[in-house]
């Protein structure tokens, strides 16, 4: 066979193939959205699992609570259209909407509120955030459209907490099946779930409030960063609100069809230190570690420079934020001096336990190199998340670990008697107690700032950075959140331009 006669069929086949592959469906006026997510939710019931992915599919879309958190992190009315709080901060009276219905037609009224809240604290409850409901003494229904919730003690964050995905309203008839067949009161109804691949929702035509503009939504799960990049570039995915490939952002920004929005998350990423273990019980050592790490370069290496350096356990879009990121500037000499002062000999070995997320595994490599510079040999021990929970979180058997605390406004963990990093500081506990009991806004802000400063001073953990929120979507898509005050992909107001 000659070269020429061979080339022809191949060329033809290639042309036919590319014609076939290029034949995408013609685009009509679009009112559907395909949204990319890194992790698949293990279930679709936010009242029986902690995974953020559950909320990223269901929050505000399928389920609603009495109140909701909006894009700015503020508490807004949802199924409760208004409320009043008694002067002692202990009795909340919610005025409920009387139009809402569950997707199966069951009505929403005060009995549902009572059921949902009582179910969350029942002995057989599997609510991952049972503590949120701990202040509730009782829920009463003077009439179907009024819910009166009485607390055992005033709780400053109570309304905000009732806006979490864990506190959504669940119908008694369908509660048991919500993991696989979620039924809520939201503007979208559950359609199908192809495990390992996608979840599809459709607009709820009988929605009680402002109907959604999108007629259908598909959530697709893609854990591989390069696959996510390819899918965005190819237009297979319309929006990737938590885009996993920071290294591809420059390329995506250059594409006029795409919008890239860098926002902030609640992901306070820290190198947690076991404060009960030597040498981390010595504040000089903890400060030395903070001085030893160039957090700007760390972000450059693992997030292409996106993300925000932090100096305390507080997100910049929460009330009362103070920028303390320069408390311990990168200064290896100072770090060495502090270590020497604390009696740490060069060559001392510490272990850093690394859970699976990339910020930990890759960040660990960078941090180990920085620590090497100041004479500390960091041994990296990668573990699965199950093992991390068991060994680090539950049994506190670790020197140091890298983890992102993604829960909103969780400075409270430093006030706990027993928490995995063993900070247990009496002064901080007093500060926190005063904060929760304060009812005056100014006072609360002042105390929030004091708490942040106290943590920066003690540096119980090396505060590293806030996970970047890299949102990438089709330039015509509007209405997605820029920031992540709580884990959610609120699609109620999303639409296509033109």
């Amino acid at each position, binding site marked *: 066979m000659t070269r020429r006669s061979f080339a022809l069929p191949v060329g033809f086949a290639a042309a036919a193939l590319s014609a076939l592959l290029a034949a995408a469906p013609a685009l009509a006026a679009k009112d559907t959205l395909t949204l990319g997510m890194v992790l698949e939710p293990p279930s679709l019931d936010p009242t029986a699992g902690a995974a953020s992915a559950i909320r990223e599919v269901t929050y505000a879309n399928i389920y609603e609570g009495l109140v909701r958190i909006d894009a700015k992190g503020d508490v807004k009315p949802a199924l409760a259209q208004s409320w009043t709080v008694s002067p002692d901060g202990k009795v909340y009276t919610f005025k409920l909407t009387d139009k809402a219905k569950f997707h199966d037609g069951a009505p929403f009224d005060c009995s549902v509120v009572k059921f949902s809240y009582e179910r969350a604290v029942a002995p057989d409850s599997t609510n991952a955030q049972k503590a949120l409901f701990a202040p509730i003494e009782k829920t009463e229904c003077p009439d179907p459209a009024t819910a009166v919730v009485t607390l055992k003690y005033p709780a400053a964050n109570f309304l905000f907490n009732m806006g979490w995905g864990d506190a959504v309203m669940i119908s008694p008839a369908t509660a048991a099946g919500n993991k696989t067949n979620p039924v809520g009161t939201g503007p979208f109804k559950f359609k199908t779930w192809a495990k390992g691949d996608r979840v599809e929702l459709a607009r709820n035509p009988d929605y009680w409030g402002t109907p959604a503009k999108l007629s259908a939504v598909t959530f697709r799960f893609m854990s591989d960063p390069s696959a996510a990049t390819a899918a965005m570039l190819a237009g297979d995915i319309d929006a990737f609100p938590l885009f996993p490939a920071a290294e591809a952002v420059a*390329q995506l920004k250059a594409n006029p069809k795409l919008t890239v929005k860098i926002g902030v998350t609640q992901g306070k990423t820290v190198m947690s230190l076991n404060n009960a273990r030597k040498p981390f019980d010595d504040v000089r050592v903890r400060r030395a570690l903070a001085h030893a790490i160039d957090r700007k370069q760390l972000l*450059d*290496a693992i997030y292409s420079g996106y993300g925000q350096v932090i100096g305390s356990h507080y997100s910049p879009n929460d009330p009362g934020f103070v920028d303390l990121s320069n408390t311990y500037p990168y200064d290896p000499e100072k770090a060495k001096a502090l270590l020497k002062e604390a009696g740490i000999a060069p060559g001392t070995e510490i272990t850093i336990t690394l859970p699976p997320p990339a910020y930990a595994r*890759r960040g*660990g*490599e960078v941090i*180990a*190199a920085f620590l090497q510079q100041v004479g500390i040999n960091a041994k*990296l*021990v990668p573990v699965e998340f199950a093992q991390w929970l068991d060994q680090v979180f539950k049994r506190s058997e670790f020197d140091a670990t890298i983890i992102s605390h993604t829960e909103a406004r969780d400075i409270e963990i430093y006030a706990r008697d027993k928490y995995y990093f063993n900070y247990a500081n009496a002064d901080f506990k007093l500060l926190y107690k005063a904060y929760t009991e304060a009812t005056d806004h100014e006072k609360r802000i002042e105390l929030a700032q004091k708490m942040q400063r106290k943590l920066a001073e003690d540096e119980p953990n090396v505060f590293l950075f806030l996970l970047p929120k890299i949102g990438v979507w089709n330039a015509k898509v509007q209405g997605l959140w820029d920031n992540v005050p709580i884990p959610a992909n609120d699609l109620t107001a999303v639409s296509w331009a033109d």
Partner: protein
Amino acid sequence: MSATDAPKPARPRWTRKWTGMSASFAVGLALTLFFAGMAALSLVWTPYNPIGLDILNKLKGPTLAHPLGTDAFGRDVLSMIMTGARNSILVALVAVVVGAGGGVPLGALAAARGGWIDNLVMRSTDLAFAFPALLTAVIITAIAGPGAVNAMIAIGIFNIPVFARLTRGSAMSLWKREYVMAARCAGRGDVAITLDHILPNLMAVLIVQATIQFALAIVAEAGLSYVGLGTQPPMPSWGKMLNDAQTYIFQAPYLAIFPGLAITLSVLGLNLLGDGLRDLLDPRIRRER
């Protein structure tokens, strides 16, 4: 080409065979020595510190300063590949030693004693073969934690049945030979016969198999490291380099080339070496071919 074409009279078979074999054997030996040399060199010298970060110079393509480029942390890819060779060889070596150390005695025992012992050993190897090797390695490393040492053990365990079966099969036929029977009649024990007559005669077969298992172990280690269960950072490993490369496949495609090339060439070298050794060491097989 036409169907009636008879094969052309070629050079005498033996020359063709000899030159062909020695060529592949030579290439195999050269490749193997090349990687072994690279690994040895990395003990004393690499162009850069293979674990030293240089974030300002990250993701630079191949240049004179960095002939194979730099990775996402600015590490020199050439230095990493050199150190990775050491890691691959070490893991594979231990895995083969574990496999042969466990499998050869078991196989020899089964062949010498026969009966229920033989049955037990053979059924156990059946069972071991029923689990896809990689799957089991995944489970073992999940239980024991990821890491080079556990990867060695996981891969090594899978070599045990391979060596056990080979040893048993070859030893069985040896036990039927006259000189073994004679030794037995002379009152020598199983152990003594195995050590004096059986194992020395198995050496050739075992060495060839060990070479092949060595190559497989290198691939297995790379595979485990690729999925994050093998060698852990900061120690460079070829498989992990490929995994990192996939993250940057749009930004730095060259990262995906060199570690894969290193795996392929070292495995190719060992395979060729194994083929060559088979022909050199085992006259029986050579005659049959």
